[in-house]
C-alpha cells in the first residue's frame, strides 16, 4: 500500500492544518451537491486543474491516487447515459436502455461531479498525515483528546494486524492444524484465525492502553500539545480558495441558467 502513504514535504501546502483542507474540500463538495448541472461542475473542475501544480503532490503519485476517479467517472457517465431519465431527443433504445438528450446531459453532469468533488478531496488528503489530523481535530475542532488520541494510537496498531495475521497462519501451519479440506473447511479455518487475530488485537490494545496510562494519559487534568495546531493566514487562505471555487461555480451555473436544486427543474 506504499502508494497510499502520505506525501510529505515542506512546502506551504504540506504544513497547512488538515482541518482546513477538509473544510476547503467540503465547501466545494457542498456547492456541487446542491445542483446537478454540467456548468457548475465543469467550472469547478477547470479551476481545480489550474491549482493542481500547487497541491504539492508529484504527478506519478497524483495519477495513482486519482486512478479510481478516472475509472469511476466514465463508468458513471455510461450508466446514466443508458438508464437515466428520458427527455428531449431520443437517440436510440435497447431493452431497458434509452439514450436521450436528458440522460446524456445528466451523464455529463454526474461524471464531471465525480471528478470535481473527488479531485480536491484526493489532492488534499494525500498530504494529510494521521498525526497532524489528530492534532487538528483535537485542537482546532476541540474534539475530546481521549477519543482522538485513542483512535490515533489504535490506527497505528492496524499496521501490526497484517504481521499478526501472517504469524498466526505460520504458527497454525507449524502446529499441524492448517490442512483444511474443501471450501467449507478453509472458511472455518480462516474464521478461526480471524478470531485469534481479534483476541490478539484486543490484548495488544490492552497493553497499549496500559502503556498510555503509565504515561499519564486519561487523567482528568488539562493536557498540552507539543505542536500547537495553527489556524492562521494560510489555513484561512485555503478555506477561502475552496469557498471561491464553490461560489464561482455556482455563479457560472446560475448565469448560464443551468443551476437547479438537486436536479429539480
Amino acid at each position, binding site marked *: 500500500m506504499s502508494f497510499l502513504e502520505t506525501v510529505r514535504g515542506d512546502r506551504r501546502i504540506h504544513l497547512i492544518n488538515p482541518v482546513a483542507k477538509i473544510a476547503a474540500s467540503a465547501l466545494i463538495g457542498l456547492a456541487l451537491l446542491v445542483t446537478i448541472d454540467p456548468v457548475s461542475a465543469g467550472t469547478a473542475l477547470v479551476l481545480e486543474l489550474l491549482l493542481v501544480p500547487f497541491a504539492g503532490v508529484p504527478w506519478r503519485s497524483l495519477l495513482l491516487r486519482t486512478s479510481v476517479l478516472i475509472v469511476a467517472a466514465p463508468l458513471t457517465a455510461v450508466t446514466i447515459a443508458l438508464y437515466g431519465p428520458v427527455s428531449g431527443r431520443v437517440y436510440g433504445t435497447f431493452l431497458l436502455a434509452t439514450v436521450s438528450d436528458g440522460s446524456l446531459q445528466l451523464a455529463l453532469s454526474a461524471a464531471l461531479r465525480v471528478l470535481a468533488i473527488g479531485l480536491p478531496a484526493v489532492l488534499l488528503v494525500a498530504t494529510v*498525515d*494521521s*498525526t497532524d489530523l489528530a492534532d487538528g481535530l483535537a485542537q482546532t475542532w476541540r474534539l475530546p483528546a481521549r477519543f482522538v*488520541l485513542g483512535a*490515533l*494510537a489504535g490506527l*497505528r496498531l492496524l*499496521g*501490526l494486524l497484517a504481521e*499478526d495475521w*501472517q*504469524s*498466526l497462519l*505460520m*504458527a*497454525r*501451519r*507449524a*502446529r*499441524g*492444524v*492448517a*490442512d483444511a479440506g474443501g471450501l467449507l473447511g478453509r472458511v472455518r479455518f480462516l474464521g478461526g484465525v480471524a478470531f*485469534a487475530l481479534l*483476541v*490478539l488485537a484486543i*490484548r*495488544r490494545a490492552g*497493553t*497499549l492502553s*496500559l*502503556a*498510555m*496510562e*503509565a*504515561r*499519564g*494519559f486519561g*487523567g482528568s*487534568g*488539562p*493536557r*498540552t*500539545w*507539543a*505542536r*500547537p495546531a495553527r489556524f492562521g493566514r494560510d489555513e484561512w487562505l485555503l478555506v477561502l480558495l475552496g469557498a471561491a471555487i464553490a461560489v464561482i461555480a455556482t455563479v457560472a451555473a446560475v448565469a448560464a441558467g443551468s443551476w437547479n436544486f438537486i436536479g429539480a427543474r
Partner: protein
Amino acid sequence: MDVRGWGWRHASRRAWAVERIDLAIEPGERVLLLGASGAGKSTLLHGIAGLLGGGEEGESRGEILVDGRPSDTMRARIGLVLQDPENQAVLARVGDDVAFGLENLAVDPSEIRTAVPAALDRVGLGGIPLDHSTSALSGGQKQRLALAGVLAMQPGLLLLDEPTANLDPDGVVQLRDAVLGSLDGRTLVVIEHRVSTWWHAVDRIVVLGSDGVLADGRPDTVLGAERERLAAAGVWLPPLDLTAPPPPVTMPAPPRVEADPLMTARSLSVGRRRKPFAATGLGFTLSAGSAMAITGPNGAGKSTTALTIAGLLPPAAGELVAGKSLRRGAGPSPHAWRSRQLLDRIGTVFQSPEHQFLAPSVRQELELGPRALGADTTAAARIAEGFAERLGLTHLLRAHPFSLSGGEKRRLSVATVLTASPSLIVLDEPTFGQDARTWGELVRLLREQLTAGRSIVAVTHDREVVDALCDVELRLTTPSSHAGGER
C-alpha cells in the same frame, strides 16, 4: 515507597499472584527485583505504578504508598517501562512519542520542545530525526525509546520490567548504561533474571518468593549469605551457579558421517519480501543429534532464517533441501509440505508465544500435538502431564495460556512443540524470561531431544544456551554475506 502486606489476585485465578509483600524503599535507592519465573514480579511492579485496576481485573489486599500516598494517585511521579517494547510506542513519530507523556502532564509546549531531544540524547537515540517512524526502529531502539518517553517525564521513581530481554549483548550494555546515566538520584526498581547485568549498579537486591519477600539486602550480603536458598528459588547467581542443574558436559557424539544430513542449505537467501533480503549467502548442514545456534545483532535476519528453515517461509533464493530421514516420504522442500506433515517433522517455537497458542487451557494446549498424531486420551494426558511436571506448569494445567507470566508462556510454547516429537526443532529465543532453575530444566529437556537423535536450530542471544547446547554457530551480521562454521 512503602508496600504494606500487599497482595493481588487476577480475576480469572483462584490463587493469589503475589501475597504478603512488605517492602520499604528509600528515595534514591537502586533495587534489583529478583524471583522465580511466575513469582509475581511484574504484577508487583504494575501495582507500584498504580496501574492495577479495580473489581473486574482482580482484587488486592494491603496497600502501596508512594511518597506517603496511594500509588494510583501518584502516577505522575512514577515512570514504568513495560516488558514488551512492541506495544509501548503510542504514536507514529519518535518525537511525538517522547512528548506524549509530557503533554499528558500539561507541560508547557516550549519546555517540551527542549525536553524531547534531551531525553532522546540521554538514551543514545540523539541521532534519530524527530519525525522518524517508531515502527521502523529495531527492538533495542524501541526499548530505549520507551525509556526516553518515561525519563522525559522526570519521574522520581523509575520502574523497569526486564528492559534488556531479547536485546543483543551490545544492546544490553547500551540500555543499562543509558538507565544508569540518567538516574540523577532517582529511585530505581528493575526486574531482570540475569543478576550479572545490574549486579554492580544496584545497592539493594530484593528476592520475591511464593510467600512474600524471600531475601532483602545489599547485593553481596544477599547473594553471599543466602546462596543456597536463592539457588533453590531459581535466582541466577554470578558467576552462573554450578549448583543449579547444569547441562551435562559430555556431548553425545554427533554422527560425523553426514551421508544423509537432515537438511542442507546452499547459498540460501531469506526474506519475507523479494528485496531486500533479510540475510543472504547462508550455507549449513543440519545432522541428527546436533544443534545449530543462529546468533547475531538485532535486525540481522535471525528470525526470518529460522522461519525459512522451519518450512514456514519460502527460500527467497538459493537452495534448502530436506534429507531423506527428515522427509519420510514428503517432498524435498519443507515449504511445500502440508501442515500435518510438518507437525512431526519440524516443530517451531515462535518468538512471540501468543501467536502459537490454540487451546483455552494449558492442558488442552499440551494434548493437541499428541492427539493430532493419533494418541488416545490417556496417552495424550500422560504426555501433557509429563511435560507440565518437568517445566513447572502442573499447577497451571487449567489456566488459560494467555493468563500465564512471560516466562511461563515461553516454557509452554516450547513444550507444545516437543509433545509432537518432531525430528527438527526450530526455536526462536527459547530461554526468554527464565530463572536459573527453569532455564536448566529447559536446556536439559532440549539436550534429551538431541540424545534421542533429533536436531535443533535455536535463535538466541543467550551465550550460555549456545555453549550448553549447540555445536555449530551460524553468526549473522548486517547486512552482507554469512557463512556457517564449526566452533
